[in-house]
């Protein structure tokens, strides 16, 4: 099943399949295709989403998160 990062539940994880925007910036922070990504937390009122990739935490705005698609096992 595929899901946007913005729709992930707390603690849910999957493999990054598609990055629809700001690919360069995201990959520089370690978020690339075929990486394992886990959602840690989300701030209220459309706040940023915090994910963990390769043991590194990255915070991204909700709209960016909506453009990253992961495959959930």
């Amino acid at each position, binding site marked *: 099943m595929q899901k946007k990062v913005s729709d992930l539940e707390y603690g849910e994880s999957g493999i990054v399949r598609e990055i629809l925007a*700001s*690919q*360069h*910036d*995201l*990959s520089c*922070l370690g978020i*690339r295709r075929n990486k394992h990504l886990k959602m*840690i*937390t989300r*701030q*209220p*009122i*459309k*706040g*940023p989403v*915090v994910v963990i990739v390769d*043991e*590194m*935490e*990255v*915070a*991204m*705005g*909700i*709209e*960016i998160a909506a453009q990253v698609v992961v495959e959930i096992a």
Partner: protein
Amino acid sequence: MGLTADERWDIIDAITQRTVGTGTYRRTLGDALGDLTIQPLTGIPVALGVLYAFWSIFGSFAGSLVTDGFMVKLFDSSWLPWLQAAWPNPDSILYYLFVGDPAADNCFEAFGALTSGLFVAIGVVLPAVLIFYLMMTVLEDSGYLPRLAVLMDTVLHKIGLHGYAIVPAILGLGCNVPAVTATRILETRKQRFIMMSLLAIFIPCGAQLGVMLEVIPETVGLVMLYLIIGFGIFGFVLDRLIPGSNPEILIDVPPYRWPAWENVTRKLWSRTKGFLKEAVPFVLLGVLIVNVLYLTGVIAALADLFAPLFVTWFGVPKETVGPLVAGFLRKDLAVAQLSTIAMTPYQMITSVVLVSIYFPCVATFVVMLREGWRELLAAIAVLIAVVFIYGGLIHAIGILMGVA
């Protein structure tokens, strides 16, 4: 040679495959703390606690402990009487410029370059700046700032910025000069412009905060409240007026680390040295210039000229024009000077807010110019509008509450 990004990543994957081995990662206490301080339910209370602690340590160390407990005694009962006795001829111009009022019994009211000037710089502002930078460096080096940025993002994104703007904002509470340069971490010109304008207008610097805590401790809270509200309102308005995009936050959240003592002291020293080198001469010079302007009657003329505006529109005594002139050189000086003018508590709040929001000090001005003169001119236009609107608004609120 020009590889594409994908080609680079392919090479990198091949390299790491051959050279990097990972074992099973064990979570540490730091990671658990990291999670707790970024999850909204626990993180927001922690953030409020941290900011409150920051503020109270700042106030008690700088205000009560060092300034009241030591510096005031030193300056008022030793330095001032000695200088008043030692400097020849109390009627001379030089006495007026350097020592000030011969009848003054404290260093705030004397207003000479070597009395008030030195006292403000060394006695009040130095301890404030020192403790501020110490706490700032610890926040920075421990890795807390990015977490604070994530927590603040929701709010800041509504005014055209994003969470990382908290870095220049907090830096600005120390000194606006490095904060202006720090706005470069924001991505677009629009964001940088909004942040720079709000910085120059609504963020009081550590020097000013230190003096405020010293001379008007009971009203500092209200002044800060007005500044924070103004930050929000005008940020919201600027976001809608200024064309351009405001990209979302995208940052690395590093693991917590113990700040390395050596690094902290090093940073603390270089920042404090920067303050001593730039601020102290400015304060002394500022007092001198203001005194000369008083002597030559320039301030009195300006006060008469602006009296209608100040008295009717802002609701403050026309004597506050003098401090506002001084404020262009140093805001801390202006606040110190305001404290010696007789006025109601609400007028004091209004005039201190005015000193904060009107022109940034010369040094900030210069760095803003370096970021682009068009931005600077636009920021000045914004500033003038804000001073008029917000100053009048505060006066109106005072009238409605029956205190102005």
